[in-house]
């Protein structure tokens, strides 16, 4: 049984540098970083010391609040460095990989014969529990509760995002195993969203034991938060879990092979990517491992782990995030355009508003850079935001409630239903250049603090 959802509002940003569907390189990892900041809600306790030997699947970190939740190493090797920031905050655990990879054996299992507690225990000790995000707030899932339902989005509509029909085309069995395991954890079952545009050619319409929804629309239609809001919105007091299709496949691989194998195809994209294509890689690989895809002689590149809208700026010396299957390379737009805003035409700039003329060239792709294109101002224009947000909330009201720290109004205007990434496009189109994602994120942090 499938269910069609057609979302009218949204925007596909025409940025250049889409990865061609071929795997250009297999990256043999050298140094890999495990970053606690990838896991929102994790209070990390370090389990290793510099020089310790680890296998792929060995625990590196544990959560201080529920000690059973472990974060494990994606590679085998030795702990090379523990990087701390201000107030000794743990930033990275760097692991020097060995030539041959050895895995911790968790044993091949069949999901159909496992109980919910067995699934939970396996996921927690293998480090894959962290793959589950809990909404509201998008934090590490609490193993004590039973969520209303589990949502999976099998595709991404983010700019230049990896095409999961390509990257996971041979992983259907693993995805199915992952589904079977997770379906033990929620009485509400699994809602599985597939791309309405490619539903017939996509491998995922064959996934069983799920409720399939065909979602069509521009970005952010592929965001799981948008899908939840259009399928069964989160009300106060409810929790749902979400898992990315990438991590669902990793969970399935764990069951089918007994190994924590996080190898994935990562799309190297962006206007500054040379010959953008896919690479075979692990989470936590160094950006320097991608050196044939960029030329940073001038030091003017931005390395984004993730997509341009909600990825993380990691820098040339940074590492790929745990959940990311995309790297975007951008030019730092520090150049100053003379009379930019006053020119009638700016052919090399894209604007979704008709105040410029990019609507005349709907097929054109733009070499976008990171320039803000203006100064930060108060919210002025009122109707641009909801045009790119296919959810029934008032984004500006929500942002203002977050700015004011007004819990009642944040609740009222839907803080439970969104994560910053869902409002990323509002931030992109905002003529007042507010950092809406940061505002929402601060609001969510306040909610977590106040409601705890």
């Amino acid at each position: 049984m499938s269910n069609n959802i057609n979302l009218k509002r949204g925007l596909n940003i025409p940025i250049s540098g889409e990865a061609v569907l071929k795997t250009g390189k297999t990256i043999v990892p050298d140094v890999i970083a495990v970053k606690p900041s990838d896991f929102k809600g994790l209070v990390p306790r370090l389990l290793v010391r510099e020089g310790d030997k680890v296998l792929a699947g060995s625990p590196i970190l544990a959560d201080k609040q529920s000690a059973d939740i472990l974060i494990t190493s994606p590679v085998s090797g030795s702990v090379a460095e523990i990087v701390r920031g201000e107030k000794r905050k743990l930033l990275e655990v760097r692991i020097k990989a060995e030539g041959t990879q050895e895995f911790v054996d968790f044993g091949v299992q069949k999901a159909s014969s496992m109980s919910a507690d067995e699934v939970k225990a396996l996921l927690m000790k293998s480090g894959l529990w962290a793959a589950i995000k809990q909404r509201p707030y998008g934090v590490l899932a609490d193993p004590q509760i039973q969520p209303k339902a589990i949502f999976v989005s099998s595709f991404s509509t983010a700019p230049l995002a990896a095409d999961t029909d390509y990257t996971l085309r041979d992983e259907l069995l693993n995805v199915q195993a992952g589904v079977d395991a997770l379906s033990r954890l929620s009485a509400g079952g699994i809602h599985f969203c597939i791309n309405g545009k490619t539903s017939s050619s996509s491998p995922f319409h064959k996934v069983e034991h799920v409720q399939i929804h065909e979602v069509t629309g521009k970005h952010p239609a592929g965001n799981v938060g948008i899908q939840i809001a259009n399928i069964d919105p989160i009300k106060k007091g409810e929790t749902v879990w979400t898992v990315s299709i990438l991590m669902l496949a990793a969970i399935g691989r764990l069951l089918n092979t007994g190994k924590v194998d996080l190898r994935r195809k990562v799309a190297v994209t962006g206007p500054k990517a040379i010959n953008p294509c896919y690479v075979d890689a692990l989470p936590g690989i160094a950006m320097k491992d991608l050196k044939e895809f960029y030329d940073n002689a001038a030091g003017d590149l931005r390395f984004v782990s993730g997509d341009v809208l909600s990825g993380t700026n990691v820098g040339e010396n940074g590492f790929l995030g745990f959940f990311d299957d995309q790297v975007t390379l951008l030019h730092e737009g520090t150049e100053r355009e003379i009379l930019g805003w006053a020119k009638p035409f700016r052919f090399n700039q894209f604007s979704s508003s008709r105040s410029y003329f990019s609507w005349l060239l709907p097929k054109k792709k733009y070499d976008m850079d990171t320039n803000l294109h203006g100064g930060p101002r108060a919210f002025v224009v009122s109707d641009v935001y909801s045009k790119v947000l296919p959810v029934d909330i008032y984004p500006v009201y929500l942002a203002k409630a977050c700015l004011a720290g007004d819990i009642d109004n944040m609740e009222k205007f839907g803080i439970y239903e969104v994560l910053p990434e869902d409002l990323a496009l509002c931030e992109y189109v905002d003529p007042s250049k507010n950092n809406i994602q940061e505002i929402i994120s601060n609001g969510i942090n306040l909610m977590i603090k106040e409601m705890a």
Partner: protein
Amino acid sequence: MEEKKNRFAFLHSTIDAFDTFLRVPGTVTKTGSHVRDAVDLKRVMILVVVALVPAALFGMWNVGYQHNLATGAETSLLATFFYGFLKVLPLFVVSYVVGLAIEFAGAQIKGEEVNEGYLVSGFLIPLIVPVDVPLWMLAIAVAFAVIFGKEVFGGTGMNFLNPALLARAFLFFSYPTKMSGSEVWIALRKGETLIDGATGATPLSFTADGIDALANAGAQYGTSFMDLVIGTVPGSVGETSIIAILLGAAVLIWTGVASWKIMCSSVLGALFVGWLANVLGATTIPAYYQLVLGGFAFGTVFMATDPVTSAQTECGKWIYGFFVGALCVVVRLFNPGYAEGMMLAILLMNTFAPLIDYCVTTAAINRREKKFKTA
């Protein structure tokens, strides 16, 4: 350059304002979305100014034309325009110099960037005042509007009243004798007098006595429907020509800068009350005349749609616009003191816009909750 910057560090906001006016700032995104849309508030504001240009140009010509009609002079098209241009230019100069000086000083004190909102307000103010308003009065009105209408609330985006309209309201209530009647609408040189039978009164001032009074105004200018649409009548500088205003409306609606919903509903509101008044015998002016008289069209297109002071929700915009139009006609018909209702209607609805939004959002949230409860 560096040294210079340090020496003038106390003028940071001012330098920054000119600098970013000439060149797009080189700031890059720090958090959140790494790329941003090319549009910024400067672009939005300049589009409103572009939309206002037809009304401004026609207004300047009309000032000269009305002068010729009233004095019996005859000049070429260019000379007519130039006469008006010289009369209107000082209004623009005063409006921008006084307003921007306060904006810059305010930004300087607060240590913020200068906001470009005044680009529009400064252009609007000369267009909504009578051409012969004394410049010192205009200066005081602008200062009042910018300080008490905007800066005290935190600048553009935080104000709840339209600053340009506030300037006009200030003039009307502080200097009523100078701002109404038949003295100020036609710009005369010193020593010039009106020809016999000519009046300085605007068409709107005749409407209190009905359509016949308007038709037989005995004025030197025509008062037919077409005259009112073309705009060859006395009035505030930019408000007379419906055609020029519609050109501006087309720009605003196409670029999405102003809300077509507010414009539509305002017209509906005016037509509705105008029709009701007709049916009930309160006036003999046909409802559609209300759309072309006085400042209705200008206010509907450029003032009521101010995104900051109008309703923010889409449903709220319909309600807000409808009441702007309706109240405008109500004031026109039932308030003998003020022939022009648009200014008061918009200012009143400005104050009610947050309430409308509150009701709309609360209703939407309740409706949604109910829907998911039953589902």
